[in-house]
């Protein structure tokens, strides 16, 4: 599983990344977490506002920090 966290590095983007890390640790699954700070790459993924979470190429949420429970549901 490939999880991409899109964000230029503002406070909420960093928060989104740590939420995802926590959720992945809790779920005990093997996932690759990548931080996307490059705007060109974000655009290619179809992300219009940050922070955004993309799992295996599919946009799960944009423009907000997800809760850990939300992330756990996506991982399941």
């Amino acid at each position, binding site marked *: 599983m490939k999880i991409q966290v899109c964000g230029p590095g503002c406070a909420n983007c960093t928060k989104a990344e740590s939420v995802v890390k926590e959720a992945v640790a809790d779920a005990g699954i093997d996932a690759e977490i990548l931080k996307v700070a490059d705007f060109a790459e974000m655009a290619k993924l179809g*992300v219009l506002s940050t922070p955004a979470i993309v799992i295996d190429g599919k946009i799960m949420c944009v423009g907000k920090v997800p809760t850990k429970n939300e992330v756990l549901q996506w991982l399941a």
Partner: protein
Amino acid sequence: MKEIQNIQCPCPESEPGAAEDAKRETRHLHYKIILAAVAVGLWFLVYRQLSAFAGFLTYTVFSLQQGSHLGEAVHFFLYDTPKVLMLLTLVIYGVGVIRTFFTPEKTRKILAGKKESLGNVLAALLGIVTPFCSCSAVPLFIGFVTAGIPLGVTLSFLIAAPMVNEIALILLYGLLGWKIAALYLVTGLLVAIVAGWLIGRLGMEKHIEDWVLEIRTNADEVPVDNLGWDERLRAGRRAVVDIVSKVWIYVVAGIAVGAGIHGYVPEGFMASVMGKDAWWSVPAAVIIGIPMYSNAAGIVPVINALLGKGAALGTVLAFMMSVIALSLPEMVILRKVLKPTMIAVFIGVVGSGILLVGYLFNMII
């Protein structure tokens, strides 16, 4: 690419545990609507008593003399702080709920394929209601332009989004009355529409960074939105907690500065510096405003106090628009997708628009 640090980003955050509560709370929706009505009623009752209460505290409890410098400053502070914070809470809640109906993706879909002039108008209007934070300016710009939305239309959106600010609007209404609030809304929209249209006419597309133009995106990719009313109301609450916890300090600081000006600066003092007759004050206000990056919530109490001391409305509005619409940090972010010429044109066109607004108001009022 360098990461952007320390940029204030009012993006919404999720409430912990939101998902589990959702089902249980849906059943109580009726009670919640009644509760909300009661809360709004209480809000109005308290709001109407604020002036009397501030007077009582200042002149009776603190036994400060009515008309003295300190008395006036303290009264101003004690009245305006709760008033502004209450207005802010109510409006942020309302806007938080309304914004759940709009997303950048939906806005893009609406704007794609629209003709330029109509597109500029729509883009400016959507700029008010679409959730937007300054750190999303670049992905949003790329997403719009690469999906075939004209550059000028995209810029109308990017100008209106910060400039026509709901917080500034409501504070102007609360502190200065609906006429000034309406003037701000209309002229803010006009600057965004005309500046975007004008830049579109200039054919500046070649001044977008080349790598952006190589990307192609599709405006039809709109995520489904199946939010219930419960979640929309929750979004409103979340917005209140999130934004008020971030801006209250600016509001209080802004009012404190305002209170100082109100109590200690002599009547008419600002008339010589920021009055109608000082023609140079409008451009000076715009130029001083560009490097300043303040929250709309903090700037309004200050301009309220300036106005009270004889500063001209046009000059003060120009200053406010310049502070919130043309900020250096946003230029630094936009520089990633726009070449320096384009940034200069952007500042030039928007700055001139604000300048015109300033002179116009000084002339007619």
